[in-house]
């Protein structure tokens, strides 16, 4: 599989190019929407959980009206789909769980309505691990999503449906959520671009909560530019609905990137556009735990960054390994409480037969939750229970602060931290299902920045074993999304990894 495709079907266009075509009136939103709906209809990847052509086309018509009226906003008329943990009025929301089969929310998540206001057309809801708990999308109560580069492999998780759909060109872009790596890891394993912003940048209102102090929404698309366009619309304060939403004005992340694209041509002074940028490499990210094929791709990507003028420095994140137990104590603790509302009283699954109230609770919940959700609820309830709180939960929250402080030390020596996203390329479906701890260990490079609440992204950086994509992780300091996107964009102007597409996905 070599060079970029020459077949310029609509689905080969990213968000930016589609928007341009729409703005130029070369194609209507209804045409674009119909084109992608046809692809979604015939998809074999298990990427979608819900679609409704009538709803999507109605939104497309509305977008065409706005276009006809002369409105020229960056995302107007471009389709996308939402991870199924965002509640939506127009589509059922299941969070990948039997607990919420056919659940209909009376309201839209803030992120969903913001993108709708920007004129984006929703093609439906995307498969994910149950309540966003997993790194392979094998914990979906409905069916696993598959990796378009090799359908015998996982697309990563928990935003696996989002990643598979974007990688396979079923949609130009998708929303995802990231609690411990759920945007970055699937993006890495499917060769697309994804960013998890600073905790609090995007409203959590309307996201089915997994771990409240970690959950964060973000875009998944093919390029940094496309992610920038989406994030500009998704981010921003939600003061009336979310107490953890940051009171910071929305930022236009795309304009600088577009300017960079334009100035690049001809201007020879732009040979070293990243001159002065210090990229820190934590030695803990490049140890024996990382597969050689992944390391090779990551190192060559970093070499490319040096060509672009960046300087590589070594930094130290000594508690990287600890981030696994710390995260897997804190996240389940919060989850065990967040999932208590699923009791079969007001919505969601209620068991058919029960003897009394307590029996109704137990049967409804045991039937409604899958293995991983059950496991994490158990862990969470245990670490919070009497006599264990200090040793587990409180201890973990203290180490969490140390981990966050280590990052601040590191950022005194560099602007951006880089490394692999996942220690291996996508594994075979079923390989790790029996061993949850093995799954947890695979999150090692994404957990620490999640615990600190830092922005991070995955940028396609090449291919590894079995021709499977490898992502480069970029971690920025708080609120430095623009810097991350800029660095990723420069890399993508110099490389074409992000333009590669899996065979058979067309």
């Amino acid at each position, binding site marked *: 599989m070599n060079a970029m495709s020459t077949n310029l079907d609509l689905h080969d266009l990213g968000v930016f190019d589609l928007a341009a075509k729409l703005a130029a009136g070369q194609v209507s939103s209804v045409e674009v929407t119909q084109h992608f709906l046809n692809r979604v209809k015939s998809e074999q990847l298990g990427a979608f959980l819900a679609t409704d052509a009538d709803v999507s086309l109605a939104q497309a018509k509305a977008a065409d009206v706005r276009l006809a009226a002369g409105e020229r906003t960056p995302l107007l008329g471009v389709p996308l789909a939402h991870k199924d943990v965002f509640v939506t009025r127009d589509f059922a929301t299941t969070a990948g769980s039997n607990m919420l089969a056919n659940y209909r929310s009376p309201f839209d998540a803030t992120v969903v309505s913001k993108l709708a206001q920007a004129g984006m057309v929703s093609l439906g809801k995307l498969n994910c691990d149950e309540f966003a708990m997993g790194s392979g999308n094998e914990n979906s109560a409905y069916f696993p999503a598959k990796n378009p580069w090799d359908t015998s492999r996982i697309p990563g998780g928990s935003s696996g449906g989002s990643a598979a759909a974007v990688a396979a060109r079923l949609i130009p872009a998708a929303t995802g959520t990231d609690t411990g790596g759920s945007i970055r890891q699937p993006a890495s394993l499917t060769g697309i671009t994804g960013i998890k912003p600073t905790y609090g940048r995007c409203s959590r209102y309307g996201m089915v909560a997994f771990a409240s102090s970690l959950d964060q929404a973000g875009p998944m698309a093919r390029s940094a530019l496309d992610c920038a366009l989406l994030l500009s619309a998704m981010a921003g304060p939600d003061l009336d609905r979310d107490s953890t939403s940051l009171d910071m004005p929305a930022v236009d992340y795309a304009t600088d990137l577009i300017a960079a694209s334009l100035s690049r041509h001809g201007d020879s002074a732009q040979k070293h556009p990243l001159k002065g940028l210090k990229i820190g490499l934590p030695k803990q990210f490049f140890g024996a735990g990382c597969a050689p094929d992944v390391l090779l791709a990551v190192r060559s990507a970093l070499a490319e960054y040096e060509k672009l003028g960046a300087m590589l420095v070594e930094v130290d994140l000594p508690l990287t390994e600890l981030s696994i137990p710390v995260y897997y104590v804190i996240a389940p603790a919060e989850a065990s*409480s967040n999932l208590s509302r699923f009791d079969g009283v007001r919505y969601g699954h209620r068991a058919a037969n029960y003897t009394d109230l307590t029996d109704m609770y137990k049967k409804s919940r045991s039937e409604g939750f899958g293995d991983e959700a059950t496991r994490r609820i158990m862990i969470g309830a245990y670490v919070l229970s009497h006599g264990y709180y200090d040793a587990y939960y409180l201890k973990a929250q203290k180490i969490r602060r140390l981990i966050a402080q280590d990052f601040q030390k590191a950022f005194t020596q560099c602007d951006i931290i880089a490394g692999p996203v996942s220690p291996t390329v996508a594994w075979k479906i079923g390989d790790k299902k029996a061993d949850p701890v093995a799954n947890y260990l695979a999150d090692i490079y994404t957990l620490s920045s999640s615990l600190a609440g830092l922005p991070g992204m995955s940028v396609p950086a090449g291919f590894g074993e079995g021709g499977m994509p490898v992502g480069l992780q970029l971690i920025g300091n708080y609120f430095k999304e623009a810097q991350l996107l800029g660095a990723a964009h420069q890399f993508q102007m110099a490389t074409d990894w992000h333009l590669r597409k899996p065979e058979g996905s067309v």
Partner: protein
Amino acid sequence: MSTTTSGLVQGYEVVIGFETHTQLTTQSKLFSRASTSFGAEPNTNASAVDFALPGALPVMNKGAVQRAIEFGLAVNGHIAESSVFARKNYFYPDLPKGYQISQFEIPVVQGGAVEFFLDGEKKTVRLVRAHLEEDAGKSLHEDFADMTGIDLNRAGTPLLEIVTEPDMRSTAEAVAYARELHKIVTWIGICDGNMQEGSFRCDANVSVRKPGEPLGTRREIKNLNSFKFMQQAMDYEVRWQIEQLEDGHTIQQATVLFDPDTGETRAMRSKEDAADYRYFPDPDLPPLMIGRDWVEKVKLAMPKLPQKLAESFVEKYGLSAYDAAQLTQNPEFAKYFQALVDLTGEAKACANWMLGELTAYLNRTGLPVDDIEIPGPVYMAATIKRVLDGTVNANVGKTIFFEFLVKVRKTRSELFELAQVVTEIDKFIELHDLRQINDSSELEKIIDDVLAANAKNVEEIRAGNTKAMNALVGQAMKATKGKANPAQVNELLKKKIG
């Protein structure tokens, strides 16, 4: 043993601590914008947050914090610069999230005390804390056969839970504390105090011990929502515990309910594993920060508390502690009194009028003192003026105030100056010839007639029967159509009978 005021009960010392849930008077809920109004159709005053729908998140109500600060200042508690909301995890159908948002390790109000008088003795009950938390919904057991209906209108209503030290040593003292607390929270307006609607719910932790022994095992009487039941429940509980111990049993810690019909307390079916609530800081809510400047602003706007106001009445006007307490029974009554004194400068007379005739009138009509039907302080001031300067006697003054002025009040919408009202009254006096007869020659003539007509009584009086005197006074007053000065009549009669 009905109401022990203090001391021992059958050789046992009673130890009581209180936990009171006061529903705050906010318009909207603690973490949602749904209305807190009472009595709406089931589940119509509930938002996505109160239904605990997936994706809903809490946002804090400033008005609830404001009220917590007001309470903290009222009881001289410490208002925490930073306090933390925690999740109390347990499953119950009226608890939609599966956890209650409350405050655990760091409450918003810390310490403080409530002071009050019991049988003339000053009592002080120390507070441990007061913390903000959300109320649960309601479980309706009656309406359905073998099912329970859940109404979440009340879910999320702001509560301030006020916790005392085990400082109370008698059931009477405990009820007096509850009454004083009720007076404070309604006086500063953070709670409407409506006990029927559950706005002021008390849990009493009751234990008994032999003097000098360590604290006994306590039983918690839940949801006492009337002072009467409170007294009955605690008295029963104390008696029951003493009986148990006397019979050689031990007390098991328990939560009990009071049944007004039987007058007994019975142990509740304890919520399972209530012991392990798995409290942890709510990750949806950063710490509540309260700046000193905010506290100072609230302090300036705070009304003087009943206790303090009563004390100032005693000092300034030389009133008795009892009268002062009566005059500060509620803010409106105290305001009326203050205005009255400012107009007349005659505190004692004003107190007598308010605690005598006015109070009787209010009880009779069931009207609050600030009701439009009640003539305001200006009217009473004018009346008192004319009584004190001897224009009319006290009885006539009352007639003027309660009959004439009530009518004036009804027919005239505009507010009068004191002088205008006095003029009004004078016209009325002239019109109905109600002037007090101070001219003694005129009075002597009348009295001579009375004496002549009642020679028999005069004999009896001379024989030493003083009772007969009253009869003569009555006759004389009658003869003057009640306009005579009763004192003067008495005097003249004595003189003439010799």
